[in-house]
């Protein structure tokens, strides 16, 4: 799949300062019946965004016209629970390109990185600070530089560096995915299989 290249991102923030947001909240299971990747953004945070009669919940930050932007700011352990990649698709499809949180669940982080959605872990202190500044002034913007692995709050100048897997970083910067690489690695994989003599490899023929 061809991807957008990720490098610099400058945007205001949508704050959702809740801990342990699980992927069932990001995209409830009843919306996982599709066989393609499109349109999941409509049901992003469905049961928090809309009431039982499908009316928008006005208190929910995504429904608050004050908050706009491609950066979601969330609480710790974002994306826990189900491995559904639909969660990353829904966030991306809705328009987010970055999620910032003090920590992420492992599978969500990988799914995000595989879809050009940048998960950035910042200290709880800086997350709190960004949250407060955004609440006071929703036009507060962040500047994200993937090459330098830095996040800077533009007005206050606060800055922090984040970690990212070097291989994934290069995939994001070049708009590549793992699939092409692994397909061209097939001869090496066959060699590996022979070398291991299928020692631990089961087959259905047993």
């Amino acid at each position, binding site marked *: 799949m061809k991807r957008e290249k990720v490098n610099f991102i400058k945007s205001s923030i949508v704050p959702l300062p809740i801990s342990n947001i699980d992927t069932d909240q990001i995209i409830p299971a009843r919306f*996982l019946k599709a066989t393609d990747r499109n349109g999941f953004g409509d049901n992003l945070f469905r049961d928090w965004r809309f009431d039982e009669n499908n009316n928008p919940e006005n208190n929910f930050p995504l429904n608050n016209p004050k908050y706009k932007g491609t950066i979601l700011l969330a609480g710790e*352990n974002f994306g826990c629970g*189900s491995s559904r990649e639909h969660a990353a698709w829904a966030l991306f499809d809705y328009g987010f390109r970055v999620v910032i949180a003090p920590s992420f669940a492992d599978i969500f982080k990988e799914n995000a990185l595989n879809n050009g959605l940048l998960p950035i872990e910042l200290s709880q202190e800086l997350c709190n600070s960004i949250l407060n500044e955004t609440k006071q002034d929703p036009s507060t913007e962040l500047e994200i530089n993937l090459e330098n692995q830095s996040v800077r709050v533009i007005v206050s100048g606060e800055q922090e560096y984040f970690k990212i897997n070097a*291989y994934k970083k290069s995939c994001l910067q070049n708009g590549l995915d793992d699939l092409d690489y692994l397909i061209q690695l097939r001869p090496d994989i066959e060699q590996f299989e022979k070398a291991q003599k299928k*020692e631990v490899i089961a087959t259905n023929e*047993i």
Partner: protein
Amino acid sequence: MKTLFDKIWDKHLVKTLDESSVVLYIDRHLIHEVTTPQAFTAIKAKGVKVFRPSQTTATADHNVPTKNQHLPIVNAASRNQVDTLTENCETHGIEYFGLGHKNQGIVHVIGPELGLTQPGMTIVCGDSHTSTHGAFGTIAFGIGTSQVAQVLASQCMIVTKPKTMRIIIDGELNHNVDAKDVILHVLKALGSNGGTGYFIEYAGRVIEEMSMEGRMTICNMSIELGARGGLIAPDQQTFDYLKNKERVPKGTQFIDAVDKWAKLKSEPQAIFDQEYLFSGEEIQPMITYGTNPGMGVQVEEEIPNALNNSDKKALAYMGFESGQSLLGTPVNYVFVGSCTNGRIEDFRKVANYVKGKKKASNVKAYLVPGSQKVLEQIKEEGLMDVFNAANLEVREPGCSACLAMNEDKIPSGEYCVSTSNRNFEGRQGAGAKTLLVGPLMAAAVAIEGKIVKL
């Protein structure tokens, strides 16, 4: 000095890409209808077929009805997803256990019972509860759909090595305490992100003496700790369970396999990045009161104080207050099933409790076997008669009300005592309120219509 995890990991390393990323070989790939259609589309777009179809096994579980499985699926979107899986398996020559097949069931229940799961393997599936298979001494973990495509296309994945954690549970378990209580106790202590970044090995006397079913329950919920997975060194119990399973080698080949499997243990001096020690005696029957599996208490304890806004939000959703006891809370829905507690041992425990009793009139109970084989066993062992006499209906296999993708939904506002793995908001149906328990408590609530002491 290697841990068990290191031993299996190292044997599956195809290539090292940089200090953090490696290409890892996958022995066994399990697939189901919900997280695979886009993966098949992705490899089709690359113009390749499945690289090693004989190492992939498919079943339909997440989206299937648990009644009238012999009839076409009523919901068009669910039917389409199952049909898409059927077609993809035909196109690529993948073995498929669809509705009506004697091997159909929840993907993590059928793997072990067919012997597709064997010690020392790497196993993945587009489902977070793939950690279940770790009970057999495997590296098994859940993956996203992009990674499903990678495995279909190359039988490999690009991954980062997790850190290692050991959780030792020593001593002995109290009466009426089982594997579910053990893992809910650990979750209460470590929290729902206590294992993030780690792969867990469970050890200690309680684990050694536990049945394979119990070990699967514990490994299953490793993901609720945030861990990539959890495993247990294979031992005589493991070998006894696997002997004569359909896909396990037979005769002298089995003896050779056991010799090899018996070496799969952490070396005595192996160092883990993190270790925790619990004693079996401190564990009591558990129940959750909040909206993540770490929010649990002993059944007789009061709900603790909310520490932050997220805790307060959870209590408000559940309709509970700090300091409240859950004992006596009326509950109208009970779910027994899922990859956590949908195996024969779980149904035996429920049957043993409900024998000679009647379901409470306020309760609607879903008893959903994890597989066709479990359903058959329920019939063979005479448990069906016990359930019928107690007015408890046994349905057909599938994931069912664990995630409510099919018709088995808990109505908004209702409590459901559930043997499944997640109490997230709306997990069992929009607005439903889940309390996670073991099979014994589920049985008790089905009979009493409220939460009671065990």
